[in-house]
């Protein structure tokens, strides 16, 4: 009932807002091509068609978006940009600086985005004061997933401090269970690193280090402690972790081979797909420490010619932030809606926790962008940090050397 009212309202709003001649057109470049993701995009596609639009799908798979970005670069250079592109984080502003993004402030203001999006997430969608992108979801990065049976058999609760985590891990290792399921790929090393960093540096320190790139924080004693903890984490990983994909690491937690995994909430999708129940078979908790690291997928609108395409952009932006799409899409994808006023009745307990923490951290200023997933920094800087993190994790480099290398790498990447 709610849905149909909403659809009716949006249809009316649409007929008022759009000139009758322009039939909305949108060519959408994205890299959501795997099972659950493709299903999620189909939701948007259907909704777009229901509102009288023509959707031209341009999925480019491969390389976690690298292939899509290459395609985008070619399209922009040839002066024929797609209508909407899946972009996120500072990449939005980077493209804006190239002068190719469109202004969708009219839709954003009419829909009151500023009131329903958390302020720090809204900040990513704005380019010099105008709205230039529409957020789709909020993935939380700083999750720790645990196997309920393994933990209760060993008398371990989900850790709330890193000392507790270390004690639990030592106990598990003594019992012959791999404490931490991990895949040795640079981005996974970086994911664990930023979770540890958030816990040890705190929200302020994290922001100074990985958003502002403050040299004093990057070289501080706390950062040495972060690398010390990373060295401990290396000891909690099994010998065979190099190059393992994240979902295989999740499977280790599922089978009870390993107890914990630190990974974003797409790992929940793996648990759910295997028929596991949150709270019974597997446990979710935020990693020790206060704060919330987010990874927000969004669509940026590019400069296009023609009223039909502009109408397509307006309609698309409106639908993306619309309550219905935010709910259906995120149920499929395992993330939570970016807007805070969506009813969460159909979501699971982990998503409820995520939404609660997002609201709280948004109020106390600890809602922070993930550096490892390209939300906090531009590619060159975040890549430079990841290089150091993964080099330290995969060698016997000392924490002090790692900190010096980190500062040099960040300075060199500017």
């Amino acid at each position, binding site marked *: 009932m709610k849905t149909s009212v909403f659809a009716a309202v949006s249809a009316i709003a649409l007929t008022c807002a759009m000139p009758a001649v322009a039939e909305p057109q949108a060519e959408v470049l994205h890299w959501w091509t795997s099972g659950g993701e493709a299903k999620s995009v189909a939701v948007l596609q259907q909704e777009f068609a229901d509102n009288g639009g023509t959707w031209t799908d341009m999925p480019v798979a491969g*390389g976690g978006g*690298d*292939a899509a*970005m*290459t395609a985008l*670069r070619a399209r*922009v*250079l040839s002066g024929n940009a797609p209508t909407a592109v899946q972009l996120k984080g500072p*990449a939005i502003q*980077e*493209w804006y600086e*190239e002068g190719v993004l469109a202004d969708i402030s009219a839709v954003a203001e009419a829909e009151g985005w500023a009131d329903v999006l958390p302020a720090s997430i809204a900040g990513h969608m704005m380019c010099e004061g105008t709205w230039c992108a529409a957020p789709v979801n909020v993935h939380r990065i700083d999750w720790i997933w645990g196997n309920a049976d393994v933990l209760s058999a060993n008398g371990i609760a989900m850790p709330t401090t890193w000392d507790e985590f270390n004690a639990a891990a030592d106990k598990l290792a003594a019992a012959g269970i791999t404490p931490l399921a991990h895949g*040795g*790929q*640079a981005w996974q*090393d970086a994911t664990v690193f930023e979770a540890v960093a958030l816990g040890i540096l705190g929200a302020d320190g994290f922001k100074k280090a990985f958003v502002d790139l403050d040299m004093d924080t990057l070289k501080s004693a706390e950062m040495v402690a972060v690398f010390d903890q990373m060295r401990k984490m290396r000891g909690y990983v099994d*010998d*065979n*972790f*190099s*190059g393992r994909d994240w979902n295989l690491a999740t499977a280790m937690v599922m089978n009870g081979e390993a107890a914990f995994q630190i990974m974003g909430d797409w790992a929940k999708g793996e648990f759910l797909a295997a028929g596991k129940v949150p709270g019974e078979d597997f446990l979710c908790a935020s990693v020790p420490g206060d704060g919330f690291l987010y990874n927000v997928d969004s669509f940026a609108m590019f400069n296009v010619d023609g009223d039909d395409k502009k109408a397509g952009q307006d309609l698309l932006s409106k639908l993306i932030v619309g309550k219905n799409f935010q709910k259906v899409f995120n149920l499929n994808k395992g993330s939570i809606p970016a807007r805070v006023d969506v009813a969460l009745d159909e979501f699971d307990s982990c998503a409820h926790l995520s939404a609660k923490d997002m609201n709280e951290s948004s109020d106390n200023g600890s809602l922070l962008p993930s550096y490892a997933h390209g939300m906090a920094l*531009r*590619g*060159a800087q975040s*890549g430079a940090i990841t*290089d150091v993190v*993964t*080099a*330290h*994790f*995969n*060698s016997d480099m000392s924490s002090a050397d790692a900190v010096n*290398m980190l500062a*040099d*790498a960040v300075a*060199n*990447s500017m």
Partner: protein
Amino acid sequence: MTEWLERHVPKMVLAPSFAAILVFVYGFIAWTAWVSLTRSRLLPKYEIEGLIQYERLFASPRFDTAMVNLFIFGTLFIIISMVLGLLIAILLDQKIRTEGVLRTIYLYPMALSMIVTGTAWKWIMNPGLGIEKMVRDWGFENFSFDWVIDPDMAIYAVVIAGVWQASGFVMALFLAGLRSVDGEIIKAAQVDGIPNWRIYSAIIIPSMAPIFLSAFIVLAHLAIKSFDLVIALTGGGPGYATDLPATYMYAMAFSRGDIGQAASSAMVMMAVVFAIIVPYLYSELRTKHD
């Protein structure tokens, strides 16, 4: 008319490919050189800013690792492939019965793409799946072969896979070389009672010098451009321990939106290739001149 045609047809036939090479090879080299002098990030920019990208490149520990890896990989890959190829070629040259079959077996890895080689060796060398597990299951509990996951040894694992792929090809080159040596000289040496190893080391191998040069040039350019082998075998890891300049360039251009860095590393790669090819071309051209 026929005379005119005779004189001009070859030029007309060659002109399109000449123009294409001029634009698509030399033109793009010039373009890359230009971009490497700018501050290009996401999209190429054309305002020249000096050597900033090269300064960043040489200050980057990751590129340092990549160049050291290229040196280790290139040297070992070329030397081991050539030694192994020569050895197999000499053994096959002993007029054995099943030479045709054996030659095919050794040459076949060359028919595979490097991606296949890399993936297969990734599994073979994975401690939990491959050789280490097999030998341990036989009862040798302390056996350890974990080069692919050891950052200090991973580049040698890449060498193993590369050598496996290329040595058969080198063998074919050398075998052809061995067969082209004049049989009369060898027979004369045998009549004089010179031992077999002396015949090889003093007569046959020295007369194969041009083959060594060809093999070296082919292997050197394979080593410098190798990209797919590393991507499939280790993905550049653990960490970036097996990065090569080509994978560095790819990461900068396509993952990090740092086109300036990518262009400057491409120029450095080209300089390395030139450092090897130019002396070769020079010697080739000079001998023709004499």
